[in-house]
């Protein structure tokens, strides 16, 4: 019940295309859902986050869609660029425990020029 399931494991997208990464969770106590971006040799960096009281959040080319009833959330990267090539992790945490993040297994995104 503590798991966050992420798919796909890897993704190849052409420049300008849309990248979509999906995550699912089971624990209804989760109330914070961030996405992290990690480049090789670097630590994860917060990209965008959402709370379950909204169904969508957009920041620039990055959008989180959240479906509370289905317990799923996804990251959409519009107009994907080669510089977006990285590993993306979804995560979740419980109220009052938002530093204790449960991470998905990650999606390695490659954007081809």
């Amino acid at each position, binding site marked *: 019940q503590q798991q966050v399931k992420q798919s796909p494991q890897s993704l190849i997208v052409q420049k300008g295309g849309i990248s979509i990464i999906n995550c699912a969770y089971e624990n209804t106590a989760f109330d*914070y859902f*961030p996405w*992290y971006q990690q480049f090789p*040799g*670097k*630590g*994860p*960096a*917060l990209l965008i*986050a959402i*709370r379950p009281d909204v169904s969508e959040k957009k920041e620039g080319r990055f959008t989180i869609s959240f479906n509370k009833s289905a317990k799923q959330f996804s990251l959409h990267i519009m107009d994907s660029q080669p510089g977006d090539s990285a590993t993306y*992790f979804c*995560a979740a945490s419980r109220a*009052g*425990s*938002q*530093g*204790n*993040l*449960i*991470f*998905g*297994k*990650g999606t390695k995104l490659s954007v081809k020029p």
Partner: protein
Amino acid sequence: EPEVTQTPSHQVTQMGQEVILRCVPISNHLYFYWYRQILGQKVEFLVSFYNNEISEKSEIFDDQFSVERPDGSNFTLKIRSTKLEDSAMYFCATKDRVGTGELFFGEGSRLTVL
């Protein structure tokens, strides 16, 4: 831009040896965390630390692990007697407040246990 600084960047040690990994948090941050990432796997929570005590820890964080903030600046993770399976990237993360404050990660310390 403020950053979390970790040392060493890479440490190689023999099984059974003690290792200390160090982290300098962002200056106004009060909440500190250690995570680890075994090569090719997901990032896993180890422990959270606030007000000089552990607030939460995972099953991974057994008696071989300890954390402290000895001088009010460095935040350290000690592994008393390393095992082969402790080989991983260890990330320190910090944030300034409880709630939805952003968690900032350092670049990690790679530990290799031989």
